[in-house]
């Protein structure tokens, strides 16, 4: 199976690898997947309290090239978005952008789950209710 050029690009030059200080109230951390499934994504956002804009996003991923590319792309898309805009990111947008084959769709689902988990962690830290997912992947 051949990878798309965009997957190869993100895999070879991943954007925004790293770690944000998870003790800060402005940082939300999402850790999704499981080692025994072969995919773990950790996605972090840092939100500007005044504007509600995501000013920084970082990831680390254990997984195949498509999982790495999905999370790399997600951090790229998150930066500069408001939290509400970030919630609108759909896994199928990632599938389309990276031209993921059907067998790799779960990588995009995981990235969407990671975004949501990071946002909910941020909301919980700031006394807000978690946002339920309207769709169920599981």
């Amino acid at each position, binding site marked *: *199976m051949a*990878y798309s050029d965009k997957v*190869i690009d993100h*895999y070879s030059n*991943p954007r925004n*690898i790293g*770690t944000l200080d998870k003790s800060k109230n402005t940082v939300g951390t999402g*850790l*999704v*997947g*499981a*080692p*025994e*499934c*072969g*995919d*773990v*994504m*950790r996605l972090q956002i840092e939100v500007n309290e005044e504007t509600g804009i995501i000013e920084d996003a970082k*990831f*680390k*991923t*254990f*997984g*195949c*090239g498509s*999982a*790495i590319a999905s999370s790399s792309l997600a951090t790229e898309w998150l930066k500069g978005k408001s939290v509400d805009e970030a919630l609108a990111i759909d896994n199928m947008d990632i599938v389309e952008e990276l031209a993921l084959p059907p*067998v790799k769709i*779960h990588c995009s*689902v*995981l990235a969407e*789950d990671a975004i949501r*988990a990071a946002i909910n962690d941020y909301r919980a830290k700031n006394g807000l209710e978690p946002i339920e997912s309207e769709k169920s*992947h*599981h």
Partner: protein
Amino acid sequence: MVKLPIYLDSNATTPMDPRVFEAMKPYFLEFYGNAASKNHSFGWQAEEAVDYAREQVASLVGASEKEIIFTSGATESNNLAIKGVYEMYAAKGNHIITVSTEHKAVLDTCKHLEKLGAEVTYLSVGEDGLISAALVESAIKPNTILVSVMYANNELGVIQPIREIGEVCKKHGVLFHSDATQAVGKIPVDVLADHLDLMSFTAHKMYGPKGVGALYVRRKNPRVKVTAQMDGGGHERGMRSGTLNVTGIVGFGKACEIAKAEMDSDAKRLGGMRDKLEHALLTLEESYVNGSREHRLPHTCNISFKYVEGEGLMMGIKDIAVSSGSACTSASLEPSYVLKSLGLDDELAHSSLRFGLNKFTTDEEIDYTIELVSSAVNKLRDMSPLWEMFKEGIDLKSIEWTEH
């Protein structure tokens, strides 16, 4: 400069030896007769070539030429051996003993027979990937008709104690079959010394062509018979109908002849290169060899690089062809059942690579592989959340993972 890409997936298939190709050439265009045509020179030439190859093949494994049944490959040989014995010896019993780490050609054949009324015992291996003869003996019952244990495992390269198992089977009067696909042509195999009654092997794992294999079927002490699985012209002593693949068989014979003469020196050289590769990769933190290192094919090694996912790693070393126990590409997301049989955490199974050397592998290729794999592992660990947690001393088992 080393020539890319580098082929290190030689447990899947081997490149063909040019001498094998040369031997086969005339049988494509010049000598095209059917080996079963008894009334003209075209047929006689083909038959003669097949007879000669049959001797070459038999000689490599210590059999007599009448004990070699040509097939399309080891999958067919395994099917013929197991289904053929099950049908032929139905009056004697219906119990088959095999091992959980066998190739699918054996496991799925056994599962098929279970649906038809067979009772199958799947022995579990130890963390070294091996079973003992004592374990086999303890599973033998009055209705046991067949024990089927692979000679060497395709994913790990570990070699089972075939001779001891053969002795146990002989003692109890149970037929003994081995899928020796990975072993024949790589290490010495002797069907008499190993007390084998049936043995499957194939040409393309030993520098021969694809599409041709053999089943050894013992003719004396005891005389073993298998029920044919295809109806037709009654070729191969009635056990395997179908026009013989003369060209392939000629190549198979030549590959066996070469293996007999050269496998010892090849094994020595490949073992040295494999050890060099393995030692270098084990200097990476948290890397582990899967399966017994002692009882193992000289050209194979299977290593897990903890906290790095195998398919992601393969993408980082795309100029090197290897296999991974990770099954990220399969819909089930299940990692290798062989690695899981060792008691390995799924996570370690996902992190494994199998390196299979062949006699055309060079020192330069091994050096390049060491360098590329090491840098890819380090790069992926830098972006692995699991590696970061490990480095922070967090026990991954203490985390509640969200399975998906």
